[in-house]
């Protein structure tokens, strides 16, 4: 068995930054400090109007290749996790294969999943490697939620930022698994709670879908914009994440003290604080790192991992619990030795 391992990581944040002073100027009764208190975010990086999620992933991959002893020729499979593809067709992964100069013998697919997407993709990468179908997988993530957000919808504009990431997942000669168990879950009843309703085939965009209205909380958006039911999303997370956490401990036979770091989807500061308290994880092991990036959807886990480790494996192998959860509703958890 060729056990799969996360070998190295890199990420890319767009240059433009949106700060809390700017947002406070738009939202009556809000100060920059109040926005930070409620979200845990000071800055979000925002993609340019002509910059797509695949551009961010491309730049992350270029960093990965320039900073590590791996070359495009080594890659035999590309997974690109995004929910903002360049086109309906072809897959953005095919475009990235060509742009990055990956071999024509390389498999390439998009994975359409959001906040749980990195852990889902890690499970897929593990499956491809450990079943002998691939040896070096370039796992890219990229999301640009800013393009969906109405400027006057503070419920989401204060939280989300844009980013891309690149991870190399490779076969090793390890005698023990280095990724896993992988546990997945889905509750499609939550589909309407975190959604962009129009733009695909169920609801087309037209003049009426673009009409922006104010909701009961004073936020403004149209059906073409991102909608998030914050209370319902929080209840979902507080219900499902502790169950997933317990299942991971049970299936892995590990205890909290055996795990070096807990890197969860960086949804919001409030949510992470609550989860940490509820799960009784010591604060030095429970990584909260969204102050300078915001919630970057499928990229939060790899960006946090890269910032925690500098993108390279630590001197002593670290055992890290990864949990992603959100849009879908969808969730996934795993334990990685990095």
């Amino acid at each position, binding site marked *: 068995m060729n056990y799969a391992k996360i070998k190295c990581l890199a990420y890319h944040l767009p240059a433009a930054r949106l700060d809390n002073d700017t947002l406070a100027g738009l939202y009556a009764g809000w100060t920059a400090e109040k926005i930070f208190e*409620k979200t845990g975010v000071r800055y979000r990086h925002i993609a340019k109007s002509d910059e797509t999620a695949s551009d961010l992933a491309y730049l992350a991959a270029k960093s990965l290749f320039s900073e590590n002893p791996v070359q495009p020729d080594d890659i035999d499979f590309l997974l690109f996790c995004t929910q903002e593809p360049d086109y309906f067709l072809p897959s953005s992964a095919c475009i990235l294969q060509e742009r990055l100069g990956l071999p024509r013998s390389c498999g390439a697919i998009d994975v359409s999943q959001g906040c749980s997407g990195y852990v889902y993709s890690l499970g897929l990468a593990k499956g491809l490697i450990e079943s002998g179908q691939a040896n070096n997988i370039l796992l890219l993530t990229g999301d640009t939620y800013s393009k969906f957000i109405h400027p006057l919808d503070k*419920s989401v504009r204060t939280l989300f930022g844009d980013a891309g990431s690149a991870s190399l997942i490779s076969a090793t000669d390890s005698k023990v698994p280095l990724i896993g168990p992988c546990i997945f879950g889905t509750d499609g009843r939550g589909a309407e709670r975190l959604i962009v309703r129009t733009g695909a085939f169920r609801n087309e965009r037209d003049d009426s879908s673009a009409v922006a209205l104010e909701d*009961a*909380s*004073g*936020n403004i958006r149209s059906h073409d914009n991102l909608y998030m*039911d*914050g*209370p*319902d999303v*929080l*209840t979902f997370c*507080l*219900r499902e994440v502790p169950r997933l956490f317990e299942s991971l401990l049970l299936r892995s036979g590990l205890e909290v003290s055996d795990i070096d770091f807990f890197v969860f989807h960086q949804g919001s500061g*409030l949510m992470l604080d*609550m989860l940490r*308290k*509820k799960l009784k994880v010591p604060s030095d092991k429970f990584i909260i790192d969204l102050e300078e990036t915001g919630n970057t959807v499928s990229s939060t886990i790899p960006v946090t991992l890269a910032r925690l480790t500098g993108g390279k494996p630590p001197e002593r192998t670290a055992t890290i619990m990864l949990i992603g959860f959100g849009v879908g509703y969808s969730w996934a958890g795993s334990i990685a030795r990095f």
Partner: protein
Amino acid sequence: MDTRFKAEMAEIFEIDESAIQPDMVLTADNWNSLAIVSTIALADDLYSVLLSGQALSKCKTLGDVTMLIAKEKDNP
């Protein structure tokens, strides 16, 4: 209403603690999605009760919220 609940609710609504009474009308004081999120967090923290956002948004007074918490405590 216990003291910590009252103090935290006063913080959520950004009003004086003396105004936190069972007959307080929520919609008069910013009963928006952020306040509801904060109340879900508070109920989970203080009472280990997971409230639904939809049920909370239907509450008219603070007394309705405490009744909802009591109901969830009895029938989790």
